[in-house]
């Protein structure tokens, strides 16, 4: 399929999203409700991961560093 520009491609992707989730058969205001609920759920997931993933990654790296990488340091000090 040939898309003349990026906007057409995006609108085709939106159409696929409508078809797969079954929203295509609903009335426009129902589509808006579903889209806003989904969008807010995804926004919350993104925000939570933005806030918490760096902290968790740092803690996890420290944990594994202490187990594997920490041993030579402690024997050196002894």
């Amino acid at each position: 399929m040939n898309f003349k520009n990026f906007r057409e491609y995006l609108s085709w992707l939106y159409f696929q999203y409508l078809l797969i989730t079954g929203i295509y058969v609903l009335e426009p205001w129902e589509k808006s409700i579903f889209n806003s609920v989904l969008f807010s759920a995804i926004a919350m997931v993104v925000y939570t991961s933005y806030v918490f993933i760096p902290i968790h990654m740092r803690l996890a790296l420290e944990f594994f560093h202490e187990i594997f990488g920490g041993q030579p340091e402690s024997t050196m000090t002894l």
Partner: protein
Amino acid sequence: MARSTNGDSLKQLNHNGLKWDDSGKNGYHKKPAEQKHGAGNGVASRQNKQESFEQAPMYVAVCTYMGFGIVTLFGYFRDFLRAVGLEKCNLAQEREEQKDFVPLYQDFENFYTRNLYMRVRDNWNRPICSLPGPVFDLMERVSDDYNWTFRFTGRTIPNVINMGSYNYLGFAENNADFLKTVADKVQQYGAGVCSTRQEIGNLSIHEELEQLVANFLGVESAMTFGMGFATNSMNIPALVGKGCLILSDELNHTSLILGARLSGATIRVFKHNNMHSLEKMLKEAICCGQPRTHRAWRKILIMVEGIYSMEGSVVRLPEVIALKKKYKAHLYLDEAHSIGAVGATGRGVTELFNVNPADVDVMMGTFTKSFGASGGYIAGKKELVDYLRCHSHSAVYASAMSPPVTEQIIRAIKCIMGKDGTTEGIRRIRQLAENTRYFRARLKEMGFIIYGNDDSPVVPVLLYMPGKVVAFAREMLQRKIGVVVVGFPATPITEARARFCVSAAHTRAMLNQVLHHLNEVGDLLCLKFSRRKRPSSCSLSEETDVGLDS
């Protein structure tokens, strides 16, 4: 001659030139528990693979259920709004005074109709304003309130290619030359019969038709009825009763099921086209007899159809006949879609499998599909048909077939047999076979999942998701092609499909146009789910579908 062993029937099938589609199907029957059309051993499964029922990838089933789930949730939401009063209810409701009674409108079927079917019902019951030939005219209708009400704009959509009518041999035509005999008979007999067969509605033209049908099928005698559905539902009760056993295929038509229930016999259902299931049931029936008394069954009747119209699959007639002979059961064959449409000279599945028609005890068929008329027939031995003339409910109470319809069937059968002196009939049969083969081959090549036997002119293209079903019907109508889409409850909930009926009246150009638009719509809606290896180089296009949908 009937083939009584599996090995011989295999050779016979090969000899008839039935197509083997063995392009790597072994990988697609991964989940035998889920596959409802599977069979056990090697012989039967090779035959089954000739009829392909490819399973779609897992993400398709997941998305289908998700789509139905989301729309059901919105259905509950809208029902809540209607109950609270925030929204006007357009459907039938119980009266205020009867609110405490047992509810009339709250079961799932009404829920489904209210909340899913009503939203999308502009794709069904479209009014047609010309004859249902290879092209037809539709009346344009629009809805202002999301399909609760329609209004006609006054315009027609002309020359829409008709891929939904059961017009297999193209006899739905209004050519004045061909219909001259019909017009003459209307002059002679009038349009209505105004009586039943047993009173004074038995016209000489009916006798002529019955003789012709018996000759056409190669049996001793036949009887015709005014309505195809009533042929099944009114005659099965005349043939079997209490104390008899009916073994009915899983996917039998409603008319057969209704007739079986009306008869009062015990009904057992075997898996679709599955000979092991049927044999197991026959063995159990013979060994154990009737449920409590263990007496022998008075009669065992196996009910199958020639072509199953929702699947496009063809019955395994040689094997069924072998089983029937071994266990001394009777066979009722409903050739509604297969008479005239399959077989080298259009005689139906008995000719397709080269089986002696005398082996089938009751041959039933309808004139609605291949003959462009209406009504049905039952054919078989003379004793059977004479018995039915006395005892059939339809003969006693239903009015007889009207003369113009009878003459249409007579001229159609004469055309097929070649008795009108032209080769038009055999040309149409060959054209239908060629169109079927071409259409199916091209669809498979494009990458759609298609069910059914390679010889059947009924082609179901699987669409699965409810949104895509609706979008498909609308897009095809925009491109001036009329298709029939079917969803739940006529099909299983995950297997919504579009059913194409190929006709002998379609020219190669029309089929090419349909295929071209199907290709476009298939790409637009991502419908090409087939994962088998295709000879052409477009196997890459399905990878993009996987990437976008998952």
